[in-house]
């Protein structure tokens, strides 16, 4: 009888200690990247966010990342993080959507954050940035700076986010230059410097004098700089790759959002949600305006301010689709968030056919 009590007491103590020990255990947070951290663009900025989490909660979190995960093969990478004790997993590309949901269904106790997606679950939240706000400002600059009225666009995949970017860019350019045209090459990749350089060269050969991109390497910028033309950086400030050629870049600042989500996870208050911020909340920023005349700079800054303060919406109605038909406005005098997130048509003035 005595021995039983002692054993039971020892077991309880051990369990209690184990419980206390696991409370001291660090929160493991995992990241799945679609490209290399060294792309100095999209993935680089996500990694900056990851580092911000480590800096904000020293000793309490442990972060892991897997980079250059091909979207088609991502399920096992996500699963690997799930199986190794990570309680919060960020999957940072649109193409990770289905694999994230699949793994999330198998691990209901792990929380997932999917970037730029639109499907949620009880343990899957989505988040994205209103990059199209930055695209609109870029369009304004490009419309003013182009001398050949031809802009080259190195695009990646025809998903709504990319299409929204092209549309916002064109609307911005058209607002200052009704004659501007855009030429689009779909590189079918998020990151392949050689191919992106080839696409930029093709566009420059076809008469574009400003290049913008939705792919992740600095290669198109380098090509533009080499020929004395201008370009926009993507997802982070790429001025060091094109000191004379970069006009500005859209910078994605995920750090405040990531730190916030880590905090709610640590406090046990995590909930699925959808967050879509832009200039106003600082998630999207513009790199310093360089290599442009002062009046263009002022116009760009004013446009940025107007969008940031909410006074101006890049997709304000009326919006006309390619055939000239007016699109039904479901927001407050502008396209609604839902409409922007599911954009699958070009606005008037774009001559290309959208690949379906």
């Amino acid at each position, binding site marked *: 009888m005595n021995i039983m009590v002692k054993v039971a007491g020892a077991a309880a103590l051990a369990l209690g200690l184990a419980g206390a020990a696991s409370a001291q255990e660090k929160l493991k947070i995992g990241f799945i990247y679609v490209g*290399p951290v060294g792309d100095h663009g999209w993935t680089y900025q996500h990694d900056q966010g990851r580092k911000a989490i480590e800096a904000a909660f020293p000793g309490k979190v442990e972060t892991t990342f897997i980079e250059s995960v091909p979207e088609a093969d991502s399920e096992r990478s996500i699963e690997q993080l799930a199986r190794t004790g990570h309680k919060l997993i960020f999957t940072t590309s649109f193409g990770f959507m289905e694999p994230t949901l699949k793994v999330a269904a198998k691990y209901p106790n792990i929380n997932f954050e999917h970037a730029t997606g639109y499907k949620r679950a009880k343990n899957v939240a989505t988040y994205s940035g209103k990059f199209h706000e930055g695209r609109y400002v870029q369009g304004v600059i490009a419309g003013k700076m182009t001398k050949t009225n031809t802009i080259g666009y190195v695009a990646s995949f025809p998903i709504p986010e990319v299409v929204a970017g092209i549309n916002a860019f064109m609307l911005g350019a058209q607002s200052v230059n009704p004659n501007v045209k855009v030429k689009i090459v*779909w590189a079918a990749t998020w990151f392949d410097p050689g191919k992106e350089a*080839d696409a930029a060269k093709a566009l420059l050969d076809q008469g574009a004098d400003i290049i913008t991109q939705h792919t992740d390497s600095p290669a198109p910028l380098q090509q533009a700089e080499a020929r004395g033309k201008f370009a926009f950086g993507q997802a982070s400030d790429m001025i060091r790759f094109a000191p004379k050629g970069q006009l500005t870049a859209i910078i994605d600042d995920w750090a405040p959002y990531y730190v916030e989500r880590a905090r709610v996870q640590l406090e046990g208050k995590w909930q699925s949600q959808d967050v879509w911020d832009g200039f106003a909340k600082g998630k999207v920023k513009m790199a310093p305006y360089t290599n442009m005349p002062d009046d263009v700079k002022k116009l760009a800054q004013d446009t940025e301010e107007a969008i940031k303060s909410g006074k101006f919406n890049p997709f304000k109605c009326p919006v006309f689709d390619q055939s000239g038909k007016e699109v039904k406005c479901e927001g407050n005098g502008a396209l609604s968030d839902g409409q922007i997130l599911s954009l699958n048509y070009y606005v008037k003035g774009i001559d290309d056919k959208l690949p379906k």
Partner: protein
Amino acid sequence: MIGFWESILLTVITAATPLLIAALGELIVEKSGVLNLGVEGMMAVGASTGFAVATLTDSSSIGVLAGIAAGMALSLIFALVTLGFAANQVAAGLALTILGLGLAGLLGAKFVGTSRIAIPPIHIPGLSDLPGIGKLVFGQSPFFYLSVVLAVGVAWFLRRTRAGLSLRSIGENHASAHALGLKVLRTRLLAILFGGACAGLAGAYLSLVYTPFWSPGMTAGRGWIALALVVFASWLPLRVFLGAYLFGAATILQMHAQAASMGLPSQALSAFPYIATIVALVLISMRRVGATPAPGSLSTAFVPPR
């Protein structure tokens, strides 16, 4: 002012050159009977080391040499495993690709985010300035001229030299070649080193000329395309040259087709280079009766009988 078509041709040349160089190296390796699947890894270390050394020494030429050396060093490991230990060549090659990609990332980690001026094309005063063909023939990147010399050299070596004949016979039937007194392992070692050097050179081209920066993943599967080119070209150097340029041209042209809004679906255009190259090379190889088959001893290990 350069014409539109000259401009396209120049872009095609830059796209085809790394594929051609890597494929020619792999051609020699496979002709000697070794299947080296590690081309992608060797290209990556070539790109990474080349860029790193070029940045450290501020000399792109030394960077190129370093890239070649890095490719050769990695291929030396492959040679040790497949020739020294007679291990399975397919497995060893794949392992080396993974090792090469990882090593390249490790070596290049400190240099991510730096940019260099690309190695400029050559300029012969007078000749390069000729209108029209001047730039095309006399104003190319030194790598292009090297790739042409390599193509001609490899073809000549294989067809017209004793050493090339030995290499081919070793690749066809290493047992008989050994019985005849040919040095199988030594020839294969030299072939593998040559293949590694070419892959490293192609990699250095990527990071020092094509897109002058280093980023992991920048080889983007070009090593695999070079491997496929060798096979589809039936192990013939001239066809490898054609295949590399066909692939490069198709890639560039499909982008121009998109930029010119020709209305063709972009996904089909993206697939076009791969399909076109496969179809063309298979057709060429089919026309001759008994088209050159694979070297008889390809990917079988040679253990000298005692």
